[in-house]
């Protein structure tokens, strides 16, 4: 799955425009990720002009994130 740093994110929706699985949507005032749809392709990381996306391969939900990342994302 991916994590989006909402401080860095500029809400340009570039990530959703290249996501082949509709796993990222602009909801309300920010981008929302649907981890169950994510296929770890990393296209969103490549395209993001703000470097706001991180990929955590083979991670299906927040509880599986490394502790360091959970700290950093405050989840």
């Amino acid at each position, binding site marked *: 799955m991916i994590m989006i740093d909402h401080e860095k994110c*500029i*809400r*340009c*929706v*570039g990530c*959703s*425009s*290249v*996501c*082949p699985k*509709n796993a990222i*949507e*602009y*909801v*309300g*005032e920010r981008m929302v990720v649907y981890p169950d749809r994510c296929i770890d392709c*990393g*296209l969103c*990381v*490549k*395209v*993001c*002009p*703000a*470097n706001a*996306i*991180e*990929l*955590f391969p083979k991670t299906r939900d927040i509880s599986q994130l490394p502790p360091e990342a959970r700290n950093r994302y405050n989840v």
Partner: protein
Amino acid sequence: MEKNDYDVVIVGAGPAGSTLARVCAQGGLDVAVFDKRKSIGNPVRCGEGLGSREVIEQGLEVPKWAISTDVKGAKVVAPDGKEIIWESGETSGWVLERKLFDSWLAQLAVLKGAEVHVNNRVVDVMLDNGRIRGVKVKNGADSEISDVTARMVISAEGMESFTARRMGFPTVHRLYDVDTCYQYEMQPYSHQNLIELYFGNKVAPRGYVWIFPKGDKRANVGIGIGAHLETRVKNSNIKGADPKPYLDEFIRNNRELKDASTLMDFGGVISVCEPIGKFTMDNAMVIGTAAKQVDPIHGGGIALAMESGALAGDAILKAREKNDFSEGFLFNAYEKPWRETAGNKMAKRLLLRKVIERLDDDDLNYIFGNMAQEDLAEIVGKNRFAEVAARMVAGRPQLLKVLGALMGK
């Protein structure tokens, strides 16, 4: 929301959606536009440049308050620093205050009788035996979701194209199809009302740096580079395209900009590819950037969006007259004429973009070194690339290989 049935529901109140709403409402249709943003045109994610021709063709006059500055020509700079300046002698376009421009277009639609609802997000499409019959709308102020039915649902949502995807239109981009961009609004920058474009594979690989002049010595200084390029190791050790370091380097090397202030800082992604393969289905259409109707060379989408909005509006009025909202009718009334006119132009410009992206800096320096002001006038003013390209190739046979390789593919 009290009313829940319309002739036409439009998703997105940008230039495409508002133009479509205006045309439909003027023709007597009951129109609602839903936009998920809290205010129209905000956030601005745009270089804000617009040629004047399309607006004039629609019989519109952009109010002074929506224009930041008049554009009176262009300056193009080669990798080796050679400049070519073309001055039109009159206003050939504008750099807009995009937020105000979008708001103005929405107001025109409202004045013709359309309803515009901001802070209303379309969360799903409603189907009836496979046919689109409306949308589900969530008002930002509460959690309630309302069903809104319509004869026609149009996606005019720009890059994200959420509703279009839900309806089954093929709107996903490949990386090669987009440029990833970064832009600052900067001040002060003493410009001469010229659009400035800087080329070079070190300046902006498969793209360019632009300086669009704005009022009060401001300027939009931006860059777009091919998103498929791997210019830097990004997060998670993934190599990808990163436009910002190129833009920062450009600014450090610019005598005036290196000391200027940054008033706005943002990025974005734009289509520079062919339009999507299908714009119409029963009771539904896609218009503007959502349909990838974006100039593949400069990434501008406003003019194409307005053109498409107007054409789609006429198509819906015709459909109403015949009471036929089928894919076949909409295809003939909107998609087919679009592809024969704007689409044709876009295809030529896409080919040109593919030629340009195969040029190395030596080729570019040669072209610019041999290009006279009149050539630039022919390209920018009259949109005649082929003639100029032919003269260039005549002097540098290596360029022919580039063309040949393309045609062979």
